[in-house]
């Protein structure tokens, strides 16, 4: 289904800079909080945001609306680049995992009720560790001291539940 977002990306692919500015105004306010949630530092988040939109401009010709909305295209890209950033930081500092800032997460949840909060705690936890902290399933199992199979199951059930919730209230 053609949407405004997909139209904008198509115009960007044709070299339309005006369309890029509109595209930025439309999606930057959505992906910026996500990037900030992941990298935590505003300056880092601004860097990542710029990188993400620059790549969107570059990769616009490769976008295929049949494979997903422009919003999902940008959110996936933003999440990936933000995780790249924190993984690079982790490698440099040689700490295995920066402790998940429970304070921020809790304060966040206090003010922003997201669909994640409607998941059972064990499922919400693995999804947050994977999606926002960038841990792989093996790292999550080590961190939670749970069998890998348990973590895989929780991830699958949690994501299925999230999809149901999102379908119910798009």
């Amino acid at each position, binding site marked *: 289904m053609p949407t405004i977002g997909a139209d904008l990306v198509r115009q960007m692919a044709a070299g339309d800079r005006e369309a890029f500015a509109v595209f930025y105004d439309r999606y930057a306010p959505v992906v910026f909080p996500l990037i900030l949630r992941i990298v935590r530092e505003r300056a880092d988040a601004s860097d990542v945001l710029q990188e993400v939109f620059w790549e969107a401009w570059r990769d616009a010709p490769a976008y295929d609306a049949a494979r997903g909305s422009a919003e999902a295209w940008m959110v996936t890209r933003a999440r990936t680049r933000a995780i790249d950033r924190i993984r690079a930081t982790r490698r440099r500092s040689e700490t295995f995992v920066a402790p998940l800032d429970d304070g921020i997460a809790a304060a966040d949840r206090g003010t922003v009720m997201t669909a994640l909060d409607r998941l059972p705690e064990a499922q919400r936890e693995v999804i947050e560790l994977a999606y926002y902290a960038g841990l792989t399933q093996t790292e999550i199992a080590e961190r939670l001291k749970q069998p890998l199979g348990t973590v895989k199951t929780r991830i699958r059930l949690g994501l299925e539940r999230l999809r149901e919730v*999102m379908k119910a*209230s798009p």
Partner: protein
Amino acid sequence: MSHEPYETLAAAYALGALDGQDRLDFERHLAEGCEACEASLRESAEALATLARSRPPMIPPPAVKQELLRRLAATAPTGRAAAPPARRPLVWAVGTVVAVIAAAGFTGTWVATRYEAQLGAMARESAALRARVEREEAVLREQVAIYRNAADLLRDPAAQVVTLRGLGPNPGATGRVIWHPVNGGYVFVANLPAAPPGKAYELWTIGGAAPEPAGVFQVDASGRGAHRIAPVAGGKPVKVFAVTLETEAGVAQPQGPMVLASAKQD
């Protein structure tokens, strides 16, 4: 191998959490063209995008957009077809805003509505801001032109400088007229209160019996104002310059209180 294990792998893959042999296995499976897994990944990506949108939108630092637009302007449009020439960006952007608002109406969820409403508000704010900047820029250009012309006029030996003094309720008000008998001149005032709504200051040149109107002007927030004075018809000498407070459009004969006046010139 049944398909069921891949559904578990697809979930971890969608979250970027798949690693090791599982990841190799799943990527091979995808490469073989599994439509069910493709669809599952698409659905997960859309759900995660909806999750991202359910957070309150946050305006990033303006420097990010400025830098992106600067980088964009610095790149020649190589490798891209030139933008179609017949586009009308403004009309199209307005269309987008309208469509966005319409879309909000159709989806009807509080999340989408709130977000789209903010987008609409942002678009309106930025349009208003742009209009304001343009207005202020025009005013500034006008002021700069007046000062530049006044400076040029001062170099003419025939130009004279006349001091205006505050009267009545504004003894602190001051003014200067740079006057050329043939070319006219400029008046600069300071420490005048902003004229009340619907009112403006009007300058008068007095040579013969009746004062001649010489234009209306306003002062800015700091009490300053500058105004070009047209030459007096016939080049008649001006003996007194005066400023009164009148209705915005100006009047033919002074009616309001006099706020500034010069000493009589000979």
